[in-house]
């Protein structure tokens, strides 16, 4: 249970994020939900690499004890960078939509249908 706690929290954050994306009408909140899902995946990745009593994976300071897994941290970092790019893109889209439509509500942003 103690070991599984990060995974459970990751699942909870993901569910909150998906809930926000499905049930919120404001585009900004939808994007916040997306960021939450992303954070959940990041937490999941980092938790995968965790080991009890291990040190940071820095080669030159290695005292010979076990280290946490560096690969997942690299993956997380990549995902954070991608996430920043995505969020910036989505927010600038929202800004343009707000300017053109006068609203950032998902009910009004529906000119495309059929």
């Amino acid at each position, binding site marked *: 249970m103690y070991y599984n706690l990060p995974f459970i929290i990751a699942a909870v954050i993901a569910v909150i994020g998906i809930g926000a994306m499905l049930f919120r009408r404001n585009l900004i909140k939808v994007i916040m939900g997306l960021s939450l899902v992303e954070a959940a995946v990041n937490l999941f990745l980092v938790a995968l690499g965790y080991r009890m009593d291990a040190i*940071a994976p*820095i*080669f*030159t*300071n*290695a*005292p010979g004890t076990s280290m946490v897994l560096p690969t997942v941290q690299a993956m997380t*970092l990549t995902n954070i*960078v991608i996430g*920043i790019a995505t969020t*910036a893109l989505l*927010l*600038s889209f929202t*800004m*343009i939509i707000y*300017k053109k439509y006068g609203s950032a509500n998902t009910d009004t942003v529906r000119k495309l249908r059929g």
Partner: protein
Amino acid sequence: MSMSKIVRAAADIIFVFILTFGFYIVAHGHLTPGGGFQGGAVIATGFVLLIAAYGSRALLDRFGKEWFRSSEALGLLVFIGTAFVALFLGATFFANWLANGGLIFGEAVAFGPNPGDLNTGGVIPIMNIAVGIEVLGALSLIVLYMLSGTEEGA
């Protein structure tokens, strides 16, 4: 859009430290946690601080969007250029052609526990610096563009 004199004076002072700290993180990316992206993000927050204190107009008067755009393009080109050089030296793309060569960043890594030497890592520090230059430009540009979208030219 500039704030009070106290804020502006404080921002002037803190900006130098933020810049120093950012470049420290960039330069030590191969030794300690951190690296190009994180350091670049720290430097970009310095510019955001200046924007907050003086307004985006004052910042653009001094630097201009072209300045940030150039730094973005320059960082990317240095990054991929470093990877390309390896091809012409007969190794594969992204190969670490500077490591253990004795030149800049070319020292071999000492074995065993040690605090780390800046002069190691081969192309990794160079790529970190390139990414740092790219990120500071890109993130500042994002903030500037978003501001110009909200302020309606203010």
